[in-house]
């Protein structure tokens, strides 16, 4: 209800945000460019050729079998790491307030604010939370 003595206001925002990462995958050997000699060298190098399999029959870039004692504790499957850092938030912020002039020198005010955030993809800690704030008071004017 609006009149010369009263005022109502509402403001708020609703936001849905997310930041997600696609699965990491390691390139196939043939997709990766290989330079044996740096082309940026000051006197101008030239690129080398792609090496073939070595004496052990293993192509460069391929990993030996897990029996290799230096490599048996390695795991290059990164298909899950993108999940660690995904973010998704839903946030609602709304404030409803009113002022009313009881007398020319006396005003009443009140407001209710609701802030609600849902952390749907907790990163390091779950940030889900909500708060409701109710305030009110009186103003004297002289």
């Amino acid at each position: 209800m609006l009149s010369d003595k009263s005022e109502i206001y509402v403001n708020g925002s609703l936001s849905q945000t997310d930041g997600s990462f696609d699965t990491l995958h390691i390139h196939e050997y043939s997709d990766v460019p290989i330079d044996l000699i740096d082309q940026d060298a000051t006197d101008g190098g030239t690129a080398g050729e792609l090496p073939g399999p070595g004496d052990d029959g293993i192509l460069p870039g391929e990993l030996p079998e897990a029996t290799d004692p230096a490599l048996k504790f390695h795991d290059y499957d990164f298909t899950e790491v993108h999940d660690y850092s995904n973010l998704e938030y839903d946030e609602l912020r709304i404030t409803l307030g009113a002022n009313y002039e009881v007398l020319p020198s006396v005003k009443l005010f009140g407001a209710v604010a609701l802030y609600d955030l849902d952390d749907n993809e907790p990163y390091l800690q779950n940030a889900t939370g909500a708060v409701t704030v109710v305030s009110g008071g009186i103003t004297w004017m002289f």
Partner: protein
Amino acid sequence: MKTRDCRAILRKALPLVVPLLAVVLAAGIGSAEESSDCAVCHDKLSKQFETTIHGRIAEFETLDGRTGCVTCHGEGTEHMDEGGDATKIRGFGDETKPEDAAEVCTSCHRSEALHDWYGGSHQMSGVGCADCHQVHAGPGEVARYSETCMNCHEDIQARMQYPSHHPVREGHMTCLSCHDPHGNSFGMLANDERPEELCYGCHAHLQGPFVFEHEPVFEGCDTCHDPHGSVANNLLVQNEPFLCLQCHEMHFHAGLEGEETASGMWYIPAFDPAVGTSKPDRDTLPDGMVEIPNGMSGYKQAFVTKCTQCHTQVHGSDSPTQTIPGRGAGLMR
């Protein structure tokens, strides 16, 4: 002439003499009389005007000593004589080009605040003074700074609703905390130096200069941060670790396979030189164990989640880090 006749003449002439005398006496300022002329028709506007800075301005503040309505709107005699014909006086409505209006304002406003107005982005884009300022309004000539800016920069207003943001929507900062809408020698930031100096005004603990540097900091804070708002924390344009992985290789320990122990507990196994690196010996657990819940993916969770859990001093540091090969510049201390 007899006295009685003089009185009669004076009685008749007084209504004309009084205003004439008042005009003569107040001629030095001009404003009182000319503004009061305007107030005859524009009464409400004039009363409102008196409460504004323009209404209170003193003569010595203007280079030609003129104040009041005529300073901006020009001489109003013809306007009054023609019964208030709006075309006979300078107006600032839609028919006036923004730069023509700005010329009037800048004829007085030659303070440091408007030094760089001409050639600035707003002026060149056709934004006029009246687009943001309300000259006849009350004491707050620019009604709520941030809301004024948002009338045109709506996408920035949207960014300020993102989870990570400067406290503009909470009212503790405004657009003017960082921007100068009148322009400056470097652009539209409230700073004549480098943009980073503006950030250091509040974030001085990151200024340095530091012994151990992080080079991209010198390319600009916006290399990694978006000051208007972002989804990732700390106003980062992208969440860790992938922001860092655009410039850095992944940590080599990320390729290690974690241990899925029977009890989920942590221990350091003995080294067996005959075998080389050995599997852990579960029969000789030392005292004091720490739960390791992350199993096979433990190393990936540790090294591919958040780089700044270890590399905390990404803006630079005076303290060296532990590892020799890093030459102290690991930014971890």
